[in-house]
């Protein structure tokens, strides 16, 4: 009896060792790598605001964005389609981590330039880090002619935005971003308007399929412009990706597509029906 047990034991032991799977050896030999988490968001915008995504070095992205008028203007205005605001921009990867962009919006004939820098990346494996941090800065210059008697200098036409973007890709379906934002305007319409506005942006992406995702974005402000009865920006978008294109369909209470505009100058009440249909079309070269 004792001998039989010992025999069985020896058989099992030697069989186990000799049939050791070669793939297991490879698994053991695989060096632990540090993986940078990619594609936290599909595009460089969540909806209106920037995501942590950058263009890679020497990649040029051309973006055309549209926002139509308010849907609740009714049939006569074809639900806002008669009115259209456009921004087009060229955005270029100076390095893998630094993107520069130049854009022009039809709203108040505004030119804007920005820099976005990826400071820390979310990583798994060796040297893992739980979230990503990017820095964003932009200057916008209004070039629309002032009403006679209300002339302003070039300096008085300038707006500045600074953002810190914290983003986390929870899994391949779900990503979040929190975006503390500071907007400064050199000239205000009335004395009661604040020159400095702080806002805290929240953004998310939910992937519906491999190439389609649902995005949402909300930017509550801590100070508001009194002269225009400003509202907080709320926007929803659907991203559709096809090869080198990303196509975004947007519903937003903002008519502008740059930070100083949609964060601090939105006047629409989203749930009151002041919704603008819009598109972002991007092509990467």
């Amino acid at each position: 009896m004792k001998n039989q047990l010992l025999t069985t034991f020896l058989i099992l032991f030697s069989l186990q060792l000799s049939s050791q799977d070669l793939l297991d050896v490879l698994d053991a030999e695989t060096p632990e790598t540090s993986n940078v988490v990619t594609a936290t968001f599909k595009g460089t915008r969540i909806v209106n605001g920037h995501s942590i995504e950058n263009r890679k070095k020497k990649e040029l992205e051309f973006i055309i964005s549209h926002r139509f008028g308010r849907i609740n203007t009714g049939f006569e205005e074809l639900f806002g389609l008669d009115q259209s605001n456009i921004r087009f921009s060229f955005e270029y990867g100076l390095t893998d981590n630094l993107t520069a962009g130049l854009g022009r919006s039809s709203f108040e004939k505004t030119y804007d330039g920005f820099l976005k820098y990826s400071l820390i990346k979310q990583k798994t494996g060796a040297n893992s880090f739980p979230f990503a941090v990017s820095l964003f800065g932009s200057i916008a210059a209004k070039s629309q002619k002032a009403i006679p008697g209300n002339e302003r200098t070039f300096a008085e036409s300038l707006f500045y935005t600074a953002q810190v973007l914290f983003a986390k890709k929870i899994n391949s379906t779900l990503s979040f971003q929190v975006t503390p934002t500071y907007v400064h305007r050199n000239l205000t319409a009335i004395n009661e308007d604040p020159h400095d506005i702080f806002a805290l942006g929240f953004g998310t992406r939910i992937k519906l399929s491999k190439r389609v995702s649902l995005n949402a974005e909300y930017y509550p402000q801590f100070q508001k412009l009194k002269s225009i009865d400003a509202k907080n920006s709320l926007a929803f978008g659907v991203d559709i990706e096809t090869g080198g294109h990303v196509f975004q369909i947007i519903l937003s209470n903002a008519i502008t597509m740059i930070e100083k505009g949609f964060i601090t100058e939105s006047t629409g009440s989203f749930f009151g029906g002041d919704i603008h249909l819009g598109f972002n079309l991007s092509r990467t070269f």
Partner: protein
Amino acid sequence: MKNIYTLFICLFLASFTNAQDKFLTKNGTITFFSKSPMENIEAENNQVLSIVATKTGQMAISILMKSFMFEKALMQEHFNENYVESDTYPKATFKGRILSFDKITATESATKVKGELTIHGKTKEIVIEAQAKRTDDAIVMSGSFFIDLADFGIEIPSVVKNNIAKKIEVSFNFDHKPYKK
């Protein structure tokens, strides 16, 4: 009874010495090439792990999908996100046997490798033609073959069907060295 014990003890010891009968590389190269009317797509991975057991001619390969490097960063992102889904299926593997392994000499000659290739969670039996040579301190294997993306459940959306070939040419080059544990 005593003889049986001796046999098992021999087997037991033999299983330890197996370790010296393996040849391994950690920086094997696999490239793939997609030729289509619109564009050619090429990617290279030079961190492929491959192992050969000289006693049996068995071979195993482990490929980390995220280590494929593309010319364009966006292609690489789409490859990982939309096609091979690297977060869900981080590795491609091959498990099989080099046929007529004993006939491989220091002079390069043609041989065949038969086994199971797993990509994107789908497994397919394949036979690959390869060039092989073997010396005391190296086993070198190289070759190329075509894989059909549909066999591995990798879908090509209709908008990019002219940009990506249905059959992808895969080339490999492994320079195995003696593996000492």
